[in-house]
């Protein structure tokens, strides 16, 4: 079920009402049924996969805990990782790896064999389960934490299954940790009016970001990325800027709705974005962008790798390579991840030299100029690396880059009506101002701290805004494909 669908508008209030009507001991059951229904609504057969992943890690967690034999504990952990990564590999990466291997074999003239394999195993037909990258990472983190004795295994299957499938964050995160979420299922939750109000405002703001801002930016970005050779440099450059903001507002909209929905039910999900667009540099950006994934990679990849003999630059490259691959099975995602790794290495590697240079120049009024310039640099390196992220294939990304600096056509607006173009820019500036001052997590402060008449005026204005300016099509959230 999509958050931005009419079905969700009926589903969610019903769940909330039933949730607060039911006694505490039945609430976990209700949320579990609701979560499975939420997922089932999409593609019924894929529920089995979610269930299988849940059952395996539930038992693995208990087994790891129950044995003191280090070898056995390791074996169980490997089993869990193998199953989760195996599922990911089969559903998400098999097609990509097959295609790459076939291309190599084709190069050596082994064409017939590859065709036969592809047809026999029907590789292209494998359907990617929505949210698989999110929930497999969540279950893996659980098994690893149990193995590391950071947490005790969850004995209640219902609570554990709910941790894996909790519908607000099931398909696009935040990737929660067991020690944060599961204890919340045990707490008796009373109706908390201020929290519900905050949750409703956050959900409404998330819908606004998605339906009015991100989808509107997407019209422009979709057009240019579909056929980059048809457009001149200025259009393509603007397409990159628009996509960078579309991606941020689309994904942060999902997270804001998820956090808001959980808040209404009395749960606190972890923050996934912390105003990344105000970051001073790349390091700060990656501490603010998709926080739950980056923390996962830090805890389960970066820290263990830093205990090896690898240099920190190699570690950064490996982590960013994995991040790219996590996002999608394609060379374009890998290149996107690696490019960001290289930018980060450049930033970390040149930090001392840049500082030395600035101190050497020692003109105080130029300091803010340097700082601002660095912001421009990191933003542009991120934005232009997104050409690889957004392009449907690596070849199209290259085509995009090829046409990027062709200035024979100085047209900016490619939308049907020019006022749509100016509206897009106006809305972007509006949400950027709010982003700068509050961020999505505290947007409710803009409303709750006002006088009652002003609050109501804002509510009504907001309703008119969302009804009138929404893009009237149910677009998937970008991160659903991962």
């Amino acid at each position, binding site marked *: 079920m999509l958050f931005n669908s*009419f079905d969700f508008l009926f589903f969610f209030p019903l769940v909330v009402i039933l949730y607060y009507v039911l006694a505490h001991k039945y609430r976990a059951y209700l949320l579990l049924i609701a979560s499975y229904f939420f997922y089932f609504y999409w593609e019924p057969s894929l529920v089995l996969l979610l269930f299988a992943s849940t059952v395996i890690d539930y038992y693995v967690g208990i087994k790891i805990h129950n044995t003191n034999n280090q070898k056995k504990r390791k074996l169980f952990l490997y089993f869990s990782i193998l199953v989760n990564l195996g599922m990911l590999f089969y559903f998400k990466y098999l097609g990509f790896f097959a295609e790459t291997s076939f291309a190599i074999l084709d190069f050596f003239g082994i064409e017939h064999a590859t065709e036969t394999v592809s047809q026999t195993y029907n590789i292209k*037909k494998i359907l990617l389960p929505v949210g698989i990258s999110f929930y497999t990472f969540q279950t893996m983190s659980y098994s690893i934490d149990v193995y590391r004795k950071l947490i005790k295994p969850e004995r209640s299957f219902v609570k554990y299954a709910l941790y894996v499938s909790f519908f607000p964050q099931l398909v696009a995160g935040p990737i929660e940790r067991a020690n944060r979420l599961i204890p919340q299922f045990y707490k008796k939750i009373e109706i908390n009016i201020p929290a519900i109000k905050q949750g409703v405002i956050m959900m409404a703001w998330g819908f606004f970001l998605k339906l009015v801002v991100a989808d509107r930016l997407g019209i422009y970005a979709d057009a240019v990325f579909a056929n980059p050779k*048809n457009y001149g440099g200025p259009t393509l450059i603007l397409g990159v800027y628009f996509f960078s903001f579309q991606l941020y507002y689309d994904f942060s909209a999902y997270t804001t709705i998820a956090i808001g929905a959980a808040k209404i039910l009395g749960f606190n999900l972890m923050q996934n974005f912390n105003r990344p667009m105000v970051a001073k540099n790349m390091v700060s950006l990656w501490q603010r962008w998709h926080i739950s994934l980056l923390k996962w990679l830090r805890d389960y990849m970066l820290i263990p790798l830093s205990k090896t003999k690898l240099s920190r630059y190699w570690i950064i490259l490996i982590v960013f390579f994995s991040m790219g691959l996590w996002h999608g099975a394609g060379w374009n995602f890998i290149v996107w991840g690696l490019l960001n790794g290289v930018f980060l290495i450049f930033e970390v590697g040149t930090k001392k030299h840049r500082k030395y240079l600035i101190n050497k120049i020692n003109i105080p009024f130029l300091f803010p100029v340097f700082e601002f310039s660095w912001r421009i640099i990191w933003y542009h390196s991120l934005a232009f690396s997104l050409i690889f992220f957004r392009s449907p294939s690596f070849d199209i990304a290259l085509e995009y880059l090829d046409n990027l600096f062709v200035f024979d056509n100085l047209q900016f607006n490619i939308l049907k009506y020019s006022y749509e173009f100016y509206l897009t820019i106006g809305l972007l500036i509006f949400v950027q101002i709010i982003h700068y001052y509050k961020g999505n997590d505290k947007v409710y402060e803009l409303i709750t701290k006002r006088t009652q008449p002003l609050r109501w005026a804002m509510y009504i204005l907001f309703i*008119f805004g969302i*009804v*009138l300016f929404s893009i*009237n*099509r149910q677009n998937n959230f970008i991160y659903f494909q991962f």
Partner: protein
Amino acid sequence: MQIKSLILKISFLASLLVICYFGFVYNITQGHVDRNYYKFTYKASSLILGISRAHDGISPAIIEQELNNSIQKPMLNFAFEKTQSSYGAVYLNAIKHKIDTTSNSGLFILSVSPGNFLITKGLKDSANIELDKNTILRKMTNFNSHPNYEYVRKCYDGSLYRGLLKPQKMFVNIHPDGWLEFKSRKLSKEKQDAIKEHWMKLTNNGYRQVDKYQKKI
């Protein structure tokens, strides 16, 4: 008490949202929705079927006028762009919904061109069927009502505020009988030159691409 007040407030705002939504949807259906909207507003005894050639090229009003009373009215141009109305199961099902089954002397004009039978190259039947799911004809279940809320909800991809603006000058005229008429325009010399230049650029661009591929080969 606080809970009651909260529920009341949320219910009020939710109702306002729903009323606003349907109000503005109604408003837009009274003006211009898009080029296909009228095709989903009433049952027809006579139909024009096919792809864009029929969509742009055959006017039901003219045919009705020419044939006077020999066909059962109303006639509707129920042709779409080729990605929407290739001949197949989806189109047939839509036609079944469109036809007024009480009529017995309807006229059916079937435009046939290669485009009617196109499918995406390299895709298997099952994948093409999947693609069909995104067509307007497949999404719709209500083919005959005005205002057609379902159409706006599922197929209109603009924003509702457009219904509040003055209609833009367009070089097409959308008739309520489904015909999409292209207006002939007298262009100034400057505009003609601009269009010519634009096409030249596109052509050059095209040649540039061809050159590139040839070099690669």
